[in-house]
């Protein structure tokens, strides 16, 4: 089923009569209150009308560059009607972007995008004048990807601002933005961005093909595009990346990836996505490599702990009790004494509260969010234990799970679901279940692909050269080539390791 397309008009091109055109336009816009028809005369003789959407245009520009020059252009009265349109464009309109249009649908599109349309009596063409100007959020620091070192600016909701942010990073004519329109009703502008020569042609074409194939009536965020073009819609793993930072997007497209900017969304999509990218942050590359390598290892370890810690707790307290060191067993035995539920139920209760707390903290306005965390910490951490509902070691396990899961935000959603899966499978089958569950996870990960690239690359299949930027972050002067899965070309000159004073001769 196709979404029903909106009918803007019943006539393909403009009439010669201004009155009829205005009537038609008014009908098309359904007398919407924000659509303004400004009727006036050029040089007191020629009837004309401007159609604008209030709020989308810069009124000052409209006044200074359009209305004023036209109204007082007395010389225009001597121009024959045939040459009046070119004359207006070349001599009178001081606006920077002007073009002629006869197709009503194009005119409507332009008006809706914030341009103004100038209709003149006895002319079956309209002049589209760019007077865009609407209020947008200013460029601010992205809250989701904060860094200590590195650029602070983040994308906004305005597409043009975002493209400019990126263009300022990559001053190169080969940086290409290709515009597509998606959404039958919303007509959302989508920009496919790539560096010509770095991104593979097939990849660019595939991304464009999939976006063009989208047939939906609304695109409200980049997330809509992501969900409609991804490779593995039934996997819990996202195989398209997103970022709010222009520097990150620049880095990714300079490695040969393709970006997708969606008007109205501060998130740019990056295609394809590798599993290892989820453990990377912009700062990894801006700070020096030693500590960053250590931190990256911690991220991998944390992710592992966050998905397996509760499952291990169940295995160790309900199945393989002999694996615990005796003193540890004694303290667990002492604290589980008198708790009413088996470990699996306790874990489920606490896991449920953990997600509830997180969600409440995210959704609630900040002052209330704080109250939520205080109440939550008290209720869960303290009261549940002292009331004998759950064992104290379990609270530690849940806390460790929570903290470690926050370290890799890109995998939070996947981690939360995997955790439940591993808890259940180990509650039924113990350590063997946990092992098999983990194997299933690996098999699934190995089967995923993202736009022609193996999702687990460079770990599966193993690319020795790229281990420099997977579990650790090697010094920048060792990153000779771009990732093999994307574009294996050379990006670094030989002998870039700084030599200090030895280099002087």
């Amino acid at each position, binding site marked *: 089923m196709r979404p029903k397309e909106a009918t803007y008009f019943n006539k393909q091109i403009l009439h010669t009569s201004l009155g009829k055109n205005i009537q038609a336009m008014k009908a098309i816009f359904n007398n919407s209150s924000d659509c303004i028809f400004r009727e006036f005369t050029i040089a007191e003789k020629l009837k004309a009308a401007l159609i604008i959407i209030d709020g989308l245009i810069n009124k000052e520009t409209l006044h200074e560059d359009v209305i004023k020059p036209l109204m007082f252009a007395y010389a225009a009265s001597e121009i024959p009607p045939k040459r009046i349109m070119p004359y207006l464009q070349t001599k009178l309109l001081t606006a920077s972007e002007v073009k002629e249009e006869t197709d009503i649908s194009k005119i409507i599109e332009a008006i809706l995008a914030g341009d103004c349309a100038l209709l003149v009596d006895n002319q079956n063409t309209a002049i589209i004048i760019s007077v865009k100007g609407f209020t947008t959020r200013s460029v601010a620091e992205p809250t989701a990807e904060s860094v200590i070192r590195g650029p602070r600016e983040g994308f906004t909701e305005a597409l043009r601002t975002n493209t400019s942010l990126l263009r300022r990073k990559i001053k190169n004519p080969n940086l290409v933005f290709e515009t597509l329109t998606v959404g039958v009703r919303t007509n959302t502008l989508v920009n496919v961005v790539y560096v010509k020569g770095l991104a593979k042609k097939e990849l660019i074409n595939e991304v464009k093909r999939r976006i063009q194939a989208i047939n939906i009536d609304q695109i409200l965020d980049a997330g809509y595009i992501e969900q409609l073009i991804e490779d593995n819609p039934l996997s819990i793993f996202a195989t398209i990346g997103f970022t709010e930072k222009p520097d990150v997007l620049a880095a990714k497209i300079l490695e040969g990836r393709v970006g997708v900017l969606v008007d109205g969304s501060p998130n740019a999509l990056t295609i394809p996505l590798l599993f290892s990218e989820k453990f990377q942050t912009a700062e990894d590359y801006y700070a020096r490599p030693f500590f960053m390598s250590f931190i990256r290892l911690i991220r991998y370890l944390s992710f592992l702990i966050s998905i397996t810690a509760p499952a291990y707790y169940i295995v160790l307290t309900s199945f393989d*009790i002999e694996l615990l060191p005796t003193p540890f067993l*004694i303290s667990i035995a002492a604290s589980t004494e008198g708790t009413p539920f088996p470990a699996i139920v306790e874990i489920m209760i606490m896991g449920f509260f953990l997600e509830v707390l997180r969600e409440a903290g995210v959704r609630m306005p900040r002052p209330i969010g704080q109250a939520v965390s205080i109440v939550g910490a008290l209720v869960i951490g303290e009261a549940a234990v002292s009331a004998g509902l759950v064992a104290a070691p379990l609270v530690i396990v849940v806390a460790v799970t929570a903290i470690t899961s926050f370290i890799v935000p890109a995998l939070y959603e996947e981690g939360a679901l995997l955790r439940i899966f591993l808890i259940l499978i180990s509650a039924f089958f113990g350590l063997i279940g946990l092992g098999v569950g983990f194997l299933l996870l690996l098999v699934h990960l190995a089967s995923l692909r993202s736009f022609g690239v193996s999702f687990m690359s460079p770990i599966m299949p193993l690319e020795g050269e790229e281990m420099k930027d997977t579990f650790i972050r090697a010094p920048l002067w060792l990153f000779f080539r771009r990732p093999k899965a994307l574009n294996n070309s050379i990006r670094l000159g030989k002998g870039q390791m700084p030599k200090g004073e030895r280099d002087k001769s």
Partner: protein
Amino acid sequence: MKKFNLLLMATLLLATSCYDRREINHLEIVAGIGFDLSNDNQIEVSFQILNAGALGKNASGGLEPYWILQSKGKTTFDAIRKATYTSPNKLFFSHNQVIIISEDLAKQGIRGIMDLWLRDEEPREDTKMTICEGKAIDILKTKLPHGLIPAYEIVNMIEASIVAAYAPIITPIDHRRLTAANIPCTVFGKIVKTSETELEYKGGALVKDDKLVDYLTETETRGYLWLKCKIKDGLIIAKTKDSNIVITLEIIRAKSGFKPVLTKNGQLTFRARADITGRLGEFEDSKSIVDPTAWPGFIEALQETVKEEMRAAIAKATYNNLDFLGLNDSVRKYLPKTFKQLASSWEEIMPLIPFTFEINIQIIGVGMVKKSF
């Protein structure tokens, strides 16, 4: 249909109902076990069981951190299973760390216990085993002045004994290995209750063919440990011959053992050897503190002590054919031809085989004491 089948299979997974699940608070965690012989000649087992409720931080006072459960049966396993007559939950043995066997029972034989311990999957094969004089339950009931769980304190005590090196440490798997010999002998450590709040772990209990046959004194045990190369730490105490100065040497490294050899004239002898590296611990003389090794007869005195200890063990082993040193096996291993000739008359020949000793003692330090001027 395919979907239905998949669903059916998924439901079957739920039917496993957590097949092996057990909750900690539904288990009685056994910390130590004592085996006794009951009056009606059955096996009587005493379990020292953790009382989890009394172990926590906010446990109410007055409760003992452990309790003792007793049961008896015809076999070891029978006795253990019958413990559930009185136990509120199933007993859990994976954290049991010590087995104490009473003298009476050990004299009758410990084969059943040993077999069960290696055959069943729950008990650990590295549990410490010891033989006690008197009743095993008395040992478990000893109120040691330190620690919460006496059984675990006993284990610590057994492990610490390696520093003194006057008692062996034996686990079921060690015992199993030793019984593979021609003359299966094991020397267990011996535990003795010396007062209501005190236990002592020293000396050895000699088990031959899974039956207790004799006890070893401390010196004999030390000799046994020397000849089996089981001394890693400990002290050698000697007295110089002429001047009667007492020397205490702290062993830092030791490698020792014995080997059968044929002399040129075809005589079978055992060559015992020990290479000891030590540090001077005490030297009861006001003079020559800096270099006591120069003292005449110093090394010889130490060598003599080690020799004496070895001799004591050899005397015990050759007397009555209690071959706990594995003399028989060593000949079989190193001199198979000679062994074949001797096999039939081994018992008569063994006491007659001579021993030669080679004790090398190297002293690498005299401690923190220095000559001041």
